[in-house]
């Protein structure tokens, strides 16, 4: 996991601040939105890292920073070992063959005045790549692969449903066989039944082409279905990272606990039984984040120390990191003991095996 050089994506100490400008004729910078404030993460070959957190916690900004769609303020982003934060747009062009993006809003991410064929062939055209058999053939093969009718090549996006549009976006993202795809909430705009289809498609493509995903979502149920590992983010900071199994069964951070307790359980008996930890108040402003631990203002565990000392992200077990002074070690009603849970965590350097039959697929 920390075996440098083997990671497809490696982000360290990433900070992305947006200037806050005063209104008026001569705008001055009067503050900074610390959207991402010191984030570390890594995605291995063929792996999916789920990135979760409430809306406003900086997930989209991480996704955009990783692909240099917004320039990070500081920190390092490496794709297949290559540092890209200081590359010019021109020098980034070859990197953009290796790393693609799938967007949240399938209505906004496709140019309404381009045909489906035009949209999916754009990566070939822009990167000046001529696939064997021609662009049109390649595009139609892709359309078929993602579950679209290749005869709809000349249609316009407004003739497709949200799920089909997301398939168009996926075809465009995989067109050049990238090593990494950054997915920013690719299913949150879709119906639950369609979500499962799209997640399955993403997983199949991952196996077929060996793609790594940085998969952003605010929905823990969705992240659970697709991720090998999960990272929890809050107000620009990383709170906890662990393998999927460990994170869902043995969470340590109070924030992860509250997120998990907000996920509805299908079984009403268990739903009633468990203690829901409600998050109080709103997300604090990232312009003026709380001192010490950024989560302390809403944390049921918070003590004086939390206000003065920033908790570092420390590895408490192989592959399980948490940034908290008072992690919650006891997990109520867990079927997996802590010991077992960590046995399931991936061993360093070895790619996490694809999720097995315990994968949750919504009905």
């Amino acid at each position: 996991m920390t075996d440098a050089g083997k990671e497809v994506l490696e982000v360290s100490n990433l900070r992305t601040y947006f200037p806050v400008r005063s209104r008026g004729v001569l705008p001055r910078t009067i503050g900074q939105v610390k959207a991402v404030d010191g984030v570390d993460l890594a995605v291995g070959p063929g792996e999916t890292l789920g990135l979760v957190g409430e809306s406003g916690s900086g997930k989209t900004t991480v996704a955009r920073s990783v692909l240099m769609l917004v320039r990070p303020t500081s920190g390092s982003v490496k794709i297949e070992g290559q540092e890209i934060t200081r590359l010019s747009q021109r020098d980034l062009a070859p990197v953009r063959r290796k790393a693609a993006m799938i967007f949240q809003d399938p209505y906004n991410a496709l140019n309404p005045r381009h045909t489906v064929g035009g949209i999916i062939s754009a990566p070939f055209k822009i990167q000046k790549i001529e696939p064997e058999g021609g662009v049109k053939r390649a595009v139609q093969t892709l359309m078929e692969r993602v579950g679209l009718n290749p005869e709809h090549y000349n249609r316009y996006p407004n003739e497709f449903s949200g799920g089909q549009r997301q398939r168009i976006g996926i075809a465009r993202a995989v067109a050049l066989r990238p090593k990494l795809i950054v997915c920013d909430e690719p299913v949150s705009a879709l119906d639950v039944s369609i979500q499962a289809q799209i997640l399955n498609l993403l997983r199949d493509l991952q196996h077929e082409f060996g793609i790594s995903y940085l998969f952003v979502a605010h929905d823990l149920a969705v992240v659970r279905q697709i991720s090998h590992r999960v990272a929890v983010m809050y107000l620009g900071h990383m709170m906890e990272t662990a393998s999927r199994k460990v994170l869902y069964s043995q969470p340590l951070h109070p924030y992860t606990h509250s997120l998990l307790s907000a996920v509805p359980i299908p079984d009403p008996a268990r739903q009633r039984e468990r203690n829901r930890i409600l998050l109080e108040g709103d997300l604090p402003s990232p312009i003026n984040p709380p001192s010490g631990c950024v989560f302390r203002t809403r944390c049921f565990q918070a003590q004086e120390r939390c206000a003065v000392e920033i908790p570092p992200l420390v590895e408490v077990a192989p592959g399980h990191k948490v940034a908290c002074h008072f992690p919650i070690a006891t997990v109520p009603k867990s079927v997996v003991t802590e010991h077992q849970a960590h046995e399931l965590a991936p061993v360093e350097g070895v790619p996490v095996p694809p999720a097995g039959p315990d994968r949750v697929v919504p009905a």
Partner: protein
Amino acid sequence: MVGRSLREIVWARLRRDRVALICFAILVVMYLLAIVGPYLLNALGYDPYTFDRAAISNSGGQPVLPNGGIEFPKHPLGVEWGTGRDIMAQLLSGLRISLIVSTSATILTVLIGTVVGIVAGYAGGWTDQILGRLMDLVLAFPFLLIVLALSGVMTDRLTAMGVPEGNTSRVLYLILVMSLFGWPYLARIVRGQVLSLREREFVEAAVAMGAGTPRILFGEMLPNLWAPILVYTTLTLPSYIGLEAALSFLGVGVLPPDTTFGAMLANSVSYFQVVPLYLFIPGGMLVLLVVSFNLLGDSLRDALDPKAIH
């Protein structure tokens, strides 16, 4: 569901719009007349430059026959007071100059306005500020005054730069001033559209694929700007036809022996009491042209209405 591009949707709607179809037909005929009309008339023996002394009286120069000298088939629309030149031939060569000036000026206006608008909207920051102030400046100029005042100097300057002297230079001057003062209106519209377009994720998607600025501006944004550009074009054309006529009326346009609607109208003023047709013939053409363009523009705007398309 049928695959429909913007063009197909608009075409399907316009086809059901009878007014738009009639206007379109009229305009097609007008352009055809402007292009082949003069040659055709020449072949048939009509010429806008030939004096016909037999058609006017020796003493006052007034047409011999009533109604401005209408005489079939020699002078179907009459002859000019004082020269006996054929009005129909003059009308068609005037139509040609009028359409050349207004069409070229519109194309230039739309080109400048679109490019400046896209650049200002997309670049933002200082570029946008500077271009915005430039637009304000241009719009603040007393257009008519400057056009009239600079006419002589600038026409000579154009001639000195190698443009054939006389009416070619004068026509080019008209085209240039009209476009140089006209572009900011469209630039503002386009800039506003681009400001909202650049927030759309498909622009970011293009960047993520490695697209350069030209591709983003002209490959991603421009196709979404056709609707306002097209509507603006069809509404600018008639206003330029009217403007050209007004400027010719004021003496900035072409000089005799060439003529345009405006010059013909200016001439007609002196003889209106005696021969009202002198006013009604070029005036009617002008109105027909302008009204057709305006109605077509309105229909096009309705057909392109994005609210109805999505």
